C-alpha cells in the first residue's frame, strides 16, 4: 500500500512525470503533428522564432526547428531507453550471478566494474562508435557497453545481501534450481534499487547521446538534439535559438527523468534517509 501515494507525493516527481509524458507524446506524435520531415527545407535560414509558420525559427539550412525538436525527442528517448534496457539486461544477469555465487566470478566482475570506473568511458565510447561506424545501433550498443557495470554493481550488492536470507534458504530446501531462485525469488526483491539506478541512467544516456552527436558521432541519417546543436555552432553568434532551444529540450527531458528517479527512490526506499 502507499507506493503510488508516496511516489506522487512530491511536486518535483509530478512535474517530472508531466514533462516526461508530454515529451513522449511529442515524440510519438511527431509525424502527426507535422506534415513534413525534419530535413525538409521550409524557408530562409536562421529565421527567428515567431516568424510566420515557424514557432521555433529555422536553422542554418532553413529547416523548421520545431520539427527538428519534435523528431529529436524520438532519438533521445529511443537511445536513452534502449541503451538502458541493454545495460540493465547485461548488468542484472552478471550482477546476479556474481552476487549469488560469489567466488572467482564475483572477483572477475568486480575487477571489471572497477576497470570501467577508472578508464575515461566517454573516450572509449568515442572509439567504439567511430570504429563501428556511427549509427543509431552503435550508439545504443556503445552506451550499453560502457554503462552496464553501474547496474551490475547494484544488482550484485542486492544479491549478495539477499542470498543468505531465510526465504532463499527455504526455496533451496524445497529443491528449487538456482536459476529459478535467482529469477523468481531474489530478483523481484532486488528490483527496487535496480529500477532507481535504471531511471537515472536513462537521463545520462540521453546526455551521452547528445554529446556523441554533437561531436558528429551520431547517426548521420537522423536529426537529434545533439546534432542540431553541433550543426549550428557557427550560427550561434547570430541566431541564439539554434543552440539554445535543443539544449533546453535536452535539459528539460533529463531533469524530468532525474526527478522521476528521485521520486522512485523515495517511494521504493521509504526508510532511506535523504
Amino acid at each position, binding site marked *: 500500500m502507499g507506493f503510488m501515494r508516496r511516489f506522487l507525493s512530491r511536486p518535483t516527481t509530478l512535474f517530472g512525470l508531466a514533462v516526461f509524458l508530454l515529451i513522449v507524446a511529442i515524440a510519438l506524435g511527431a509525424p502527426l503533428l507535422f506534415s513534413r520531415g525534419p530535413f525538409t527545407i521550409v524557408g530562409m535560414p536562421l529565421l527567428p522564432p515567431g516568424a510566420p509558420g515557424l514557432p521555433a525559427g529555422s536553422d542554418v539550412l532553413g529547416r523548421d526547428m520545431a520539427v527538428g525538436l519534435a523528431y529529436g525527442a524520438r532519438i533521445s528517448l529511443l537511445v536513452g531507453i534502449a541503451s538502458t534496457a541493454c545495460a540493465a539486461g547485461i548488468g542484472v544477469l552478471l550482477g546476479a550471478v556474481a552476487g549469488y555465487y560469489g567466488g572467482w566470478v564475483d572477483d572477475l566482475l568486480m575487477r571489471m566494474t572497477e*576497470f570501467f*570506473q*577508472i*578508464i*575515461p*568511458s*566517454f*573516450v*572509449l565510447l*568515442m*572509439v*567504439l562508435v*567511430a*570504429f*563501428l*561506424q556511427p549509427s543509431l545501433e552503435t550508439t545504443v550498443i556503445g552506451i550499453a557497453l560502457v554503462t552496464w557495470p553501474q547496474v551490475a554493481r547494484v544488482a550484485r550488492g542486492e544479491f549478495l545481501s539477499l542470498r543468505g536470507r531465510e526465504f532463499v534458504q527455504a526455496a533451496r530446501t524445497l529443491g528449487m534450481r538456482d536459476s529459478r531462485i535467482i529469477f523468481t525469488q531474489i530478483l523481484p526483491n532486488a528490483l527496487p534499487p535496480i529500477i532507481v539506478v535504471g531511471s537515472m541512467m536513462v*537521463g545520462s544516456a540521453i*546526455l551521452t547521446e*547528445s*554529446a556523441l552527436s*554533437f*561531436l*558528429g*558521432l551520431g547517426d548521420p541519417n537522423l536529426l537529434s538534439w*545533439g546534432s542540431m*546543436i553541433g550543426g549550428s*555552432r557557427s550560427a*550561434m*553568434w547570430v541566431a*541564439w535559438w539554434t*543552440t*539554445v532551444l535543443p*539544449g533546453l529540450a*535536452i*535539459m*528539460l527531458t*533529463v*531533469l524530468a527523468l*532525474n*526527478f522521476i528517479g528521485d521520486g522512485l527512490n523515495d517511494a521504493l526506499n521509504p526508510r532511506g534517509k535523504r
Partner: protein
Amino acid sequence: MSRLSYIGARLVKTVLVTVAVVLLSFFLVRLAPGDTATVMAGQAGFSDEAFMKSLRAEYGLDQPVTAQLWKYISAVAQGDLGSSFVRRQPVLDVILERLPNTLLLNGFALLVAIAGGVAMGVMAARRPGSAMDAAMTVLSMVFYAMPQFWLGMMAMLMFSVWLGWLPPFGLETMGADYTGLARFGDIAVHMILPGVTLALYFMASYARLTRTAMIEVADQDFVKTARAKGLREGQVARRHILRNALIPLITFAGLQAAILVGGSVLVENVFSWPGVGTLAYEAVTTRDNPLLLGIFIVTAILVCLFNLATDIAYSIADPRVELG
C-alpha cells in the same frame, strides 16, 4: 598491511589496468571494418592484390593474432602507439604536444571545483534545510541535467557574445605574441570560461559530498569532546570537522577523473582549446583511427596514475583507513 605494501598493491593494480587498456585497444582495432592495409590502400587510392599483400606483410597483419598481440603490446610498452594516418607523425608525439594544455585546463577545473564545492558545502552544512541548502540541491540537479558542452556554449553566448567580458576561443590571443607575465595573464583569461564550465558539474558533487561529510563528522565523539573542551564553534568547524570531512574528497577526485577527461573532450571543442580533446575531435572527423585510439590509451593511463596518486594521498591523510 603496512603502507608500503599497500602502495605496492596499488601499483600492481595500476599496471594491471594499464595492460587491460592495451589489450582492449588491440581488440578495438579489430572492430573497425577492414584492416590497416585496406585503409592505407584506400588512402593511396589504389589496391591491387600484391600491394595489399605487401602492406599486410609490412604491418605483420598476415601473422597469427597472438603474434600480432605480442607485437602490439611490446610496441605500446616502448611508447610506440603507431603513426597518425593523417599527420604522418608518431601518435604519441602528436598527443604529447597537446597534453600540457589539457592538463592545465583539467587541473584548473579541478581546483575551481574543489574550492567552490567545499565553500558551498560548508555553508550548506551550517544549517541543513536552509536556503543555501535548497539552492545547492536545485543547482546540482540543473547542472546534472545539462549537457556540459551546451553549458559551455551558453556561457560563451553570455560572457563573450553578449557581455564581451571574456575571450570565447583558444588558448591565447592570436598574433599578440605576449611573453612572460603578460602571456600568463592572457592564457589565464582564456582559461576562465572553459575551466569554470568544466568545474561547475563537479562543483555540485563536491558541495553535496562536503555537506554530507560535514554533517556526519559533526556527529562524532571527538567533535563533542572538542565542544566540551570549550572550543569556539568556528574552531571546531574548521579544525575538527572540515579537516576530516575533506578526506573523502580525495577518493572522489580520483573517481571523478575519468568523467573530468570525458567532459574535457567536449568543453575543449566548444572553446577551441588546443588540447587532447580537440585532437580527439580532429581524429574523428579525419577518420584517424590510430590517433583516436592513442588518445584513449594515453588518457586512460593518466587517469589510472591519478587514481594511484589519490589512493596514496588518502592512505596518508587518513591513517585509520583499512589498507587492503
